[in-house]
């Protein structure tokens, strides 16, 4: 027996096929790099982001400069490639600047909701039954509102403005985020390796930090990426209703609502801000789909 027990001297299974060790994130990155559709739309998203950042360099005119004589001019009028709006401001410049508030309103609420909702969800999923019930039943209440309605209710009551709009949107996304994180955490929590970690003598915080988060971050991130386009849409809707971004800040939703009054004069210009919202949102959506399928690695 002691003869056979001397195994460690030679490594067992050394001959087994050595796969390339890439790790989870390595695999995800590899898949993304080989997904032309996602790469393409990701590039557009990047362009939109760059456009927002370098708006002052790109915009041909000052987006705030009004002019009584230049009101509602057609495309190409005196260097105004896309014409002017009802206050005589250059439409192209306003469209370029409009990317700023759209991206901000798309990303900030999602980031807040991911942090707060994710934290609540991990607590709810890992803590005992009572804490879980308190958190999740509260979330259920917010879930009982259609998202647009809740966003309108909260920002409608608080009044317009970008900060109020972002707060309202974050509040709308927190419950959904919380659910995603809670489900993922509860799933991980029931797996043996958590019990194994407990058996090692690790405390709750250490286990959450090293064993739970790594497994929860994936689904949370996937969901967050899909929320960005929802957030952009909802934010532009709020601005359209007179909530969210306040005039004279250039914002696609706001532009849509003011240009709409001149629909018979400049119908094409009137549709442009909406097209910008649509393109941005669909690109984020497709990128998010790409990330989702890239991250769907069976382990």
């Amino acid at each position, binding site marked *: 027996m002691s003869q056979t027990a001397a195994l460690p001297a030679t490594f067992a299974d050394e001959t087994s096929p050595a796969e390339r060790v890439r790790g989870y994130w390595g695999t995800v990155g590899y898949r993304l790099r080989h997904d032309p559709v996602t790469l393409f739309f990701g590039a557009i998203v990047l362009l939109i982001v760059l456009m927002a950042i370098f708006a002052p360099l790109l915009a041909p005119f000052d987006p705030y400069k009004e002019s009584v004589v230049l009101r509602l001019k057609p495309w190409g009028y005196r260097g105004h490639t896309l014409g002017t709006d009802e206050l005589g401001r250059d439409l192209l410049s306003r469209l370029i600047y409009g990317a700023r508030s759209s991206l901000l309103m798309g990303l900030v609420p999602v980031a807040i909701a991911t942090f707060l909702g994710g934290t609540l969800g991990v607590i709810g999923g890992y803590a005992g039954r009572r804490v879980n019930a308190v958190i999740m*039943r*509260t979330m*259920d*209440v*917010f879930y*009982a*509102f*259609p*998202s*647009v*309605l809740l966003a*309108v*209710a*909260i920002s*409608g*009551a*608080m*009044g317009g403005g970008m900060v109020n709009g972002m707060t309202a949107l974050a509040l709308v996304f927190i419950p959904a985020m919380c659910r995603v994180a809670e489900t993922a955490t509860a799933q991980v929590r029931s797996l043996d390796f958590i019990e194994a970690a407990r058996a090692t003598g690790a405390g709750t915080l250490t286990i959450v930090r090293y064993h739970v988060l790594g497994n929860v971050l994936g689904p949370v991130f996937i969901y967050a990426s899909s929320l960005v*386009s*929802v957030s952009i*849409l909802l934010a*532009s*809707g709020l601005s*359209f*209703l*007179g*909530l969210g971004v306040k005039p004279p800040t250039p914002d696609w*939703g706001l532009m*849509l609502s003011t240009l*709409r009054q001149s*629909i*018979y004069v400049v*119908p*094409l210009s*009137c*549709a442009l*801000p*909406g*097209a910008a*919202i*649509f393109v941005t*949102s*669909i690109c*984020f*959506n*497709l990128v998010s*789909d790409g990330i989702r399928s890239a991250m769907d690695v069976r382990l």
Partner: protein
Amino acid sequence: MLAYIMRRMLLAIPIAFGVSVVCFSLVYLAPGDPLSVILPADATQEMVAQIRHAYGFDRPLPVQYLFWLGHVLTGDFGMSIATRRPVILEVTGALSNTFMLTSFAVPLAFGLGYAMGALAGCFPGRAVDRLVTGAAVVGVSLPNYWLGIVLVIIFAVEFMALPATGMGPKGSAQFSLLRWSDAQYMILPVVTLALIPVGIIARTTRAAVAEVLNLDFVTTLRAKGLSEIAVIRHVLKNSAPQVLAVMGLQFGYLMGGSILIETVFTWPGSGFMLSKAIINRDIPVLQGTILFLSMIFVATNLVVDLLQSMIDPRIRRS
């Protein structure tokens, strides 16, 4: 079954309670003291005193909630700041107009979505299938109110085939579906409202149908020599619960979407009223409308759940 219905209805009570608390707190979210929020700026001294007493504004918050709930349950939602009319009258009037829109839009959206999805599911990989996948992505990325504007540009501005906004010259009170001159005002809003969820419903139906088609029992049915039509009937029946769940959700989106769509078409429904209330900072109307709409949503979810459990007994047990 009856026990399940009872239990499910009991479960809806805490949700309804929570929803009412959220609606109640809207007044406190608004900047300024709640009295000034729900009263017109030119309210008389007696009015202020009377409302303060009636709503218990000098009492602790839970008591205020109970006072408010008491008023709401007896149909008193306060008074509109803009029109000085009771909120309940405003809301119910507007709701009937919204209901008119949704009662056309919902069957249209669900029917179209379901048909497309079922077709795509039965012919995976074909053109219908790709159409559905595309429509779903477009549907979730499209600002629905912009779609309304585009339709207006095409059909009202360019072709002048349909009216752009409103409910017709006679207004809401004499509106009749049977008169073309009135009914044509509904076409664009209904179509806009219906087009948004079509893609998602189709995608879900497609997924559900494709999943059921892959199950062993379908192979067994085919092996037994059942006709293809009978097989498809079976498949559709088995995929119904999932589809139903999504339809319930989409109904909520439709309701939320109606806020923006009605604003675009100045259709005097609850959504349009909400956006007017926002502009006028008419918090009582805002609160009343939100409460009504969200309660309708809670009730719809309940109905969807019950329907689902009727079709699929497995749900009852979990």
